[in-house]
């Protein structure tokens, strides 16, 4: 059984004439890792700021655990890292967390636990200003973990981390999800999102243009055919499988059929006297899907309405 813990309904933020976030309706379910994707300036951070009560929406509503953003009870159940960590530069990492734990009315051992979880315990006494970008980011995540919140809202949590740090962060997020936490994260690392997220929302120019499971968004598998002459191969396959399933991808053909049809495809091409150079299973990455969705230059072409493309 799932329940929606974050729900937005036509959430909108306008700055003058410009709609930074335009009628976004999304849901995050309990226990899932939700990836929030979009190009720079698409409205991800503004949406997350509205969800944490830092920014007031122009119109529309958002609820977390059934309450309005910024509500004390909601904030106590939510850990937040928005657009880079904000800490006192002259304080040590440990003291920065102690300040926040006092705000949350937690014991100091919560600080040690959070530092330990992000691997900063041995550097906890160093001043924040001396931290590397990656360490600052990890301290930001540690702050979000204070008090073991039910929901983590993380804006680009792997920003500035080295590959090992990214892998650790991924493990941490998966571990948190496994232990019952819900995570909503925005990221530019599409491979990372593909790996750890259950569902994703894609935002572009302020509009939510898709919301679905990662698997559904990537779509089914297809066959990649590299043959010569290509045009004749395309005609043969279109006659065999239908015109709609054959598409040109660079110097090859993408055939949207089950990989089980590979022997049949090979046979018909060879029988037709076409030279077959490559026949492979093709799976769209989330990155392919993302770029296809967000590369439209004309906003009016993307969606006819504000309803996102729902695949689940």
């Amino acid at each position, binding site marked *: 059984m799932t329940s929606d813990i974050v729900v937005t309904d036509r959430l909108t933020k306008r700055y003058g004439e410009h709609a930074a976030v335009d009628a976004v309706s999304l849901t995050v379910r309990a226990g899932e890792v939700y990836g929030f994707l979009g190009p720079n300036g698409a409205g991800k951070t503004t949406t997350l700021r509205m969800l944490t009560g830092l920014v007031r929406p122009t119109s529309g509503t958002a609820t977390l655990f059934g309450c309005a953003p910024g509500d004390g009870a909601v*904030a106590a159940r939510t850990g937040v890292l928005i657009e880079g960590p904000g800490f006192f530069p002259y304080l040590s990492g440990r003291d920065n967390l102690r300040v926040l734990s006092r705000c949350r009315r937690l014991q100091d051992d919560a600080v040690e636990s959070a530092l330990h979880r992000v691997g900063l315990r041995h550097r906890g006494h160093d001043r924040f200003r001396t931290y590397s970008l990656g360490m600052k980011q990890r301290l930001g995540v540690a702050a979000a973990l204070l008090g073991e919140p039910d929901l983590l809202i993380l804006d680009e949590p792997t920003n500035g981390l080295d590959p090992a740090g990214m892998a650790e962060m991924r493990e941490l997020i998966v571990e948190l999800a496994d232990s019952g936490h819900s995570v909503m994260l925005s990221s530019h690392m599409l491979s990372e999102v593909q790996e750890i997220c259950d569902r994703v929302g894609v935002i572009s120019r302020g509009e939510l243009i898709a919301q679905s499971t990662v698997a559904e968004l990537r779509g089914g598998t297809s066959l990649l055919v590299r043959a010569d002459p290509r045009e004749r191969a395309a005609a043969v396959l279109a006659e065999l499988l239908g015109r709609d399933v054959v598409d040109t991808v660079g110097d090859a053909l993408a055939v949207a059929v089950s990989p089980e049809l590979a022997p049949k495809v090979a046979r018909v091409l060879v029988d037709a006297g076409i030279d077959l150079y490559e026949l492979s299973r093709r799976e769209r990455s989330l990155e392919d899907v993302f770029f296809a969705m967000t590369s439209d230059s004309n906003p009016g072409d993307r969606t006819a309405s504000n309803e996102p493309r729902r695949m689940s």
Partner: protein
Amino acid sequence: MNAVIAGTRAELLRLRKWPSMWVLLAAWIVLNLVFVYLFNYITFKTGGTTDMASSAPPDVLLAQMLPSAVPQVFTQGMAMFGGALMLILGALTIGSGYGWGTWKTVFTQGPSRSAALAGTLLALLTVVIGLVLTVAAVDVGVATVIAAVESEPANLPAASAMLKALASGMLILAMWTAAGVLVGALARGPALSVGLGLVWVLVVENLLRGVAAVLDTVSVVTDFLPGTAAGSLAGSLRDFGGDTTPGVLNILDGSTSVLVLAAYVAAFAAGTIWLVRRRDVN
């Protein structure tokens, strides 16, 4: 209320470890000693005059430096440089949080913005109280040494006079600190808020009082400016002859000054909370 106490504890922790705050407080104490005791003592010993020392006769100068005079003299510097330094502290406390992004972090921890800001204001009030008590103790100590060196009686001031002076000092500095907090919230950054605050304290108010000396109608406003009220309260504690310290005024009487200053403290604090609550945090 618990959220306010939690916010106060959090803010005190970070203020206690903030080098900038200690620099400002130390500067205050040093300036106080220099202007209240050092210049006057040099003038007294050399028999000369300086712009910063009172032109009072030597016996009056010495009387100002004795322990019994501490209630009258230790608020003198508060009206000018003390107020400016505390305004800087208030402005930096709020304004820097926008630059560092710490308000964004604090406002997502659970306590409401009002509670978090009330905690900050209470923490700053604690600093003000601590500073005033420290300055009073330092002044009594220095005055006792001067009395011993000059073979004068080292009688401590009357408790009632000392309490009145302490309360007045706290009110003056609380007002300037709250003013700095409001300017910091308005400017949402440390540099602009400090600059604007100092221009107001050191330039604008003096210019306006200058205009009021020529145009009576302007005095309706200038008589109730923050600096006028602070200077008047400091002036009301003083009964020595001779020139007053710059910034120390005799425009309002003591009780009116107290009322005006209390109104400013309340208005600045409420204005800050109102402003921060209604604005987005980016």
